[in-house]
């Protein structure tokens, strides 16, 4: 059986090996003795023809747009030129990586990425937990639902929209600047200040996703048995102490799991968010790994160097997710996979 499973997964074979004529006379599954792998494969294909056909478009998509690009990673080791293509370009070994590490911009890029990631873990990560605890402590179900409806919304807006809205409020010609002017203060443009840009990014992430982040914590809070609260209350614990001794320990496993997964994504900081705002604050403050790949590789034509930076980021990212998942398992959590 296992050998068939190994073969059967290539769905192109499934179609190729299914001549139209044979389908007219479907053989009885029991009457055809499996004589060899090919026979058994052909048999499985005929018997489950419909399932393989349903599988085909989706699998083709994943193979072509998720697995095939892995081949393109090879240009990180090439002196790639789009005119020569993959086959015409020459191999250059680790040259691109050597150039990358000698590049002062790359060092700044890594530093920016790590600082932004750190700020987000320190501030954007706990924000939904605090909001979930606050909302959970409300007595009125109606208030809770209204607040939820409001705070979930920005998650569904694109980064372009979110940043444009912020621009209208906090930008040089925005509402805040108007307010400052009326108070007789100097004009402000929070959106174009390179020094505070990383704080701005973190605030935007909180504004957009704090509500969305509460959902998983609400689910965790809902799974805590209410008897625990009742007996704690009977023993004289106030609402703050109940939160500290019952709610927080109850959601701790989810918190640990999400934190570990977030650490696994330490090199991924909001790509579109930063790309959109780089023109207003400059590359020095706003170059992160993903934008470096885009500007250097795609726009700058340094394909090999861009791909090398992308490969480093992707490989470290995947390794960290796998490692983080293993740590989650060791910590007693179910982990992601």
């Amino acid at each position, binding site marked *: 059986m296992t050998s068939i499973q190994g073969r059967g997964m290539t769905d192109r074979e499934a179609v190729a090996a299914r001549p139209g004529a044979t389908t007219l006379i479907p053989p009885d599954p029991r009457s055809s003795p499996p004589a060899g792998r090919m026979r058994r494969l052909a048999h499985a294909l005929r018997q489950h023809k419909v399932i393989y056909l349903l599988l085909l478009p989706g699998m083709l998509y994943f193979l072509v747009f998720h697995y095939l690009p892995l081949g393109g990673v090879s240009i990180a080791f090439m002196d790639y030129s789009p005119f020569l293509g993959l086959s015409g370009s020459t191999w250059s070994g680790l040259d691109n990586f050597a150039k990358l590490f000698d590049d002062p911009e790359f060092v700044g890029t890594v530093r920016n990425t790590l600082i932004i990631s750190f700020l987000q873990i320190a501030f954007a990560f706990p924000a939904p937990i605090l909001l979930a605890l606050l909302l959970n402590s409300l007595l009125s179900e109606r208030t809770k639902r209204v607040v939820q409806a409001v705070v979930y919304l920005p998650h569904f807006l694109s980064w372009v929209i979110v940043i444009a809205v912020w621009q*209208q409020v906090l930008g040089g010609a925005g509402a805040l600047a108007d307010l400052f002017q009326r108070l007789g203060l100097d004009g402000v443009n929070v959106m174009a200040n390179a020094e505070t840009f990383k704080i701005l990014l973190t605030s935007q992430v909180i504004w957009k996703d704090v509500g969305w982040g509460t959902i998983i914590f609400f689910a965790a809070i809902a799974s805590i048995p*209410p008897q625990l609260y009742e007996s704690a209350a009977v023993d004289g614990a106030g609402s703050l102490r109940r939160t500290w001794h019952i709610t927080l320990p109850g959601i701790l496993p989810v918190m640990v799991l999400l934190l570990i997964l977030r650490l696994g994504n330490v090199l991924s900081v909001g790509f579109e968010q930063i790309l959109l705002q780089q023109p207003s604050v400059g590359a020095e403050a706003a170059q992160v790994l993903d934008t470096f790949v885009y500007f250097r590789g795609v726009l700058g034509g340094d394909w090999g160097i861009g791909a090398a930076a992308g490969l480093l980021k992707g490989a470290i990212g995947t390794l960290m997710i796998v490692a983080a998942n293993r740590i989650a398992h060791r910590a007693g959590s179910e982990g992601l996979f």
Partner: protein
Amino acid sequence: MTSSHQPVWVERPNRVVTTIKGILIGAILLVMIYPLAYVILNSFAGPEATTTAGLIPSEWSLSSYSTIFKGGIVQRSLIVSILITLVGTALSLVVTSTLAYALTKTRQVPGIRPALYLVLLTMIFSAGIIPNYLVVKAFGLLDSYWSLIVPVLASAFNVVVMRNFFMQLPRELFEAARIDGAGELSIFIKIVLPLSKAVLAVIGLFYAVSYWNSFFNALLYLNDSSKWPIQLVLNSYVLQGASMSSMNGAEMYNLPSSQSVQMAVLVTATVPILIVYPFLQKYFTKGVLTGAIKG
């Protein structure tokens, strides 16, 4: 009294604590709502009105919207975005549901289990921007609308959510249909899909939102600005036009660069999300997705 549905052991609310919570909630609502309300209301300001921090413009007018819908790049990009969203969502649902159904047959059909692992594995790696670009280019999809759909046709996460839903459907129904002589295809179309309207709706909405919001793929794959979807136009006209000192941007798109027109473009790009949002919220608060994460 009002809190009659609360358990008896919950103490009467402390006045100080209630006030602090009230202030916090008020502040949160203000920070979330004010920016959106400010933009929506001021998009109705007349051309003469000066922008202030106030929510109510000094002069009401629809002139910003009539400027946008006179034709030109904003209107065209809206049509592009609507078509991409409709076609993309339909194709994504077809591919996701067929794949998800096939992947429920890990026990019965050889080869399905490895296929499932191949799909799951894509959740933890990405080849990166440049390799993806090369594949899209190799297929001749650059500057084609298909480049906004085909490379993001399905997400492994949505496939898993839908597969989990299909797995929970009562098996007896399938057995009964099979005894009645129904083939796999008619079981899928006549039994599985009609029973799965809720999950199809929520995943369809998520796909639709992501097609509508898609920005970077369009930036990467479409050089021809006449093909741009609304998010790209929003970026050049509202964001970059505002942050770059040169006003070339405004002339290029043949739009007056008044702030209320910028806001009107912004509102137009947001309205479709606001329309589907109540439906989205209804589903995801029911735990359709959180239940799937644990599965």
